[in-house]
């Protein structure tokens, strides 16, 4: 019997250890697993490497992790935004290390980890300072940079609905990094608005099959 549903966000983040690499879904405020990140904050987990597109805003989710000094390193494409005060503060003080990765490369590196690949050559960034220290190879007359897979120990993802096998569907642009991160981590934890019965999700329209998912928790929509 497979049942990946857990009762609380506390159960959902159980066992996540200090020093973990955590992939955190979301783009801007869309698709961010806010309650899971707060559960991780409450758990006290620290010394984290956080992989996420933005670096949080205001006082919630990744910004709160930064404020509470739980993040040692952030891997991210666009940390600077209106309200990214805590990131900027910690970064200026040298308290958080930043690895800046072009957004498509960030996503593709996680996918490579998910797919069991050893890395890939991409033209993105090849002629830029973000290629510094990286292998560059001319392929088809064009310069490409070698990029390594980026796996997570944990992925925290937000989806719309799940069944007990962990099959997921998302809602509009909140899908963003969710499917890739879910597949790229050793432990994938998902918060959803709603649980549905097994068989209720259309097999043609399941976006993340349960094989990628370890725990699902329902979070009341505010």
């Amino acid at each position, binding site marked *: 019997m497979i049942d990946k549903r857990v009762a609380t966000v506390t159960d959902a983040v159980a066992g996540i250890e200090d020093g973990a690499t955590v992939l955190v879904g979301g*783009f*801007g*405020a*869309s*698709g961010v697993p806010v309650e899971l990140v707060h559960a991780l904050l409450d758990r006290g987990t620290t010394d984290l490497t956080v992989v996420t*597109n933005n670096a949080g805003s205001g006082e919630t989710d990744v910004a709160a992790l930064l404020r509470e000094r739980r993040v040692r390193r952030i891997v991210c*494409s*666009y*940390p*600077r*935004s209106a309200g990214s005060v805590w*990131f*900027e503060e910690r*970064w*200026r003080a040298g308290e958080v290390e*930043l690895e*800046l*990765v*072009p*957004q*498509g*490369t960030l*996503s*593709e590196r*996680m*996918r490579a980890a998910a797919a069991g690949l050893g890395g890939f050559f*991409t*033209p*993105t*960034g*090849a*002629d*830029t*300072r*973000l290629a510094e220290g990286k292998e560059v190879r001319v392929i088809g007359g064009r310069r490409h940079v070698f990029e390594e897979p980026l796996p997570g120990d944990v992925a925290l993802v937000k989806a719309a609905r799940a069944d007990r096998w962990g099959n997921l569907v*998302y*809602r*509009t*642009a*909140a*899908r*963003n*990094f*969710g*499917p*890739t991160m879910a597949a790229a981590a050793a432990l994938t934890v998902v918060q959803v608005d709603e649980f549905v019965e097994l068989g209720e999700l259309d097999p043609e329209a399941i*976006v993340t099959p349960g094989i990628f998912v370890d725990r699902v928790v329902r979070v009341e929509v505010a």
Partner: protein
Amino acid sequence: MRPDLRDVARRIARDIPDGAYVNLGIGLPTLVADCVGDGKEVVYHSENGILGMGPTPAPGEEDPELINAGKQPVTLLPGGAFFHHTDAFLMMRGGHVDVTVLGAFQVSETGDLANWATDDVTHPPAVGGAMDLAVGAKRVLVMTTHTTRDGSPKLLPRCTYPLTAAGVVDRVYTDLAVLDVTAEGFLVREMAAGLTRDDLQGATAARLSFAEDVGVLGQRE
């Protein structure tokens, strides 16, 4: 009268073909969407997993999760689709987007683009999806003021700011001119009314050449 940026957006819109898949960069380039008319059907792509973006929703109709790359609320047209980030960038990097319109700090005469970082080291760097779009779109259009606010030229022999991508820009649209990037450098296609060639060269650090039939910017509406 010197064209304003809405005129530039209108000019760019004219160059977007019917049926094109288009990604508009954050900021200025989003002005272009409002200017594409004439019964053209254009499919707008957003890096966060949307094809077929429609206009800004009416006040009160916003869905906080349905946003564009600039994190502004948008809508979806009939025929639109959602997909994940990795597929969104597969489209961008893989040459599936027909046209992108990007802002710029600097453009070089060889088509190098600098639009993500200045030499200010007091602010944390941020790159987003600009590099993927610049290397991947079939046609890269740049929309920018011709000079910076303090009058420094943005069209240069070589960029001094960190590059976004090298040799990718096809055409530049400014408030003073429309310029193609050619093997011989910037070729002026259109100029604002009342501007002399010397005026334009004076506002440009790169050496300009001029098409045989230089048009008047904004006069073909």
